[in-house]
């Protein structure tokens, strides 16, 4: 479905869809008043993303989900930095919650998510083959004893 949407519109539409979900939760939790603050924020953010993605820059290419190889590599590095900072933040928050005797179950949920995401990432990015050297006379695989 996303393929049929022009790249420049994908992020803004995702933001609008996500914003609609958040707005629905906000309305259910606090009533229609929450829309007064949420709706302009969501619409302006989506419009801003659309305008931004029309520029000629690395960030714009990432926003419109059309990065070239350097931009995709940069995006991965950015995500790695964000992941590390978030992990460190979660660790500090865990310690703070533990010290304050606050409920720790949200951290257990995130730890489970971490394990699932790590396993999924490992499987998704694995390469074919078992890493054995198939040249004639070579030891069979990395488990073979060293000579």
């Amino acid at each position, binding site marked *: 479905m996303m393929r049929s949407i022009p790249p420049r519109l994908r992020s803004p539409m995702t933001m609008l869809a996500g914003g609609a979900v958040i707005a629905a939760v906000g309305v259910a939790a606090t009533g229609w008043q929450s829309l007064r603050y949420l709706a302009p924020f969501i619409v302006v953010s989506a419009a801003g993303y659309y305008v931004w993605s029309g520029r*000629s*820059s*690395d960030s714009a*290419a990432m926003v419109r989900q059309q990065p*070239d*190889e*350097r*931009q995709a590599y940069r995006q991965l590095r950015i995500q790695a930095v964000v992941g590390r900072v978030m992990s460190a933040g979660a660790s500090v928050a865990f310690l703070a919650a533990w010290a304050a005797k606050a409920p720790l179950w949200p951290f257990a949920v995130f730890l489970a998510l971490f394990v699932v995401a790590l396993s999924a990432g490992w499987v998704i990015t694995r390469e074919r083959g078992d890493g054995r050297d198939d040249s004639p006379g070579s030891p069979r695989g990395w488990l073979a004893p060293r000579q």
Partner: protein
Amino acid sequence: MRNRVREQRTQRGLSQAELAAALGVSRQTVISIENGRYLPSLPLAFTIARFFDLTVDKMFDPDDEEAAP
């Protein structure tokens, strides 16, 4: 690693944007390659070399550590 992308591009009177469009990458990536800040992948290196009718080792010189200007 030194490369001859800028030299070849200017010889042919191409702008960075035109070269980027021909290679299917962004202008920023052409700038980064020319400045030696980014080493292209092997497929992109071949694409660049073929675009300029050169071999990869003529286009990119690994022995020259005096990278980009």
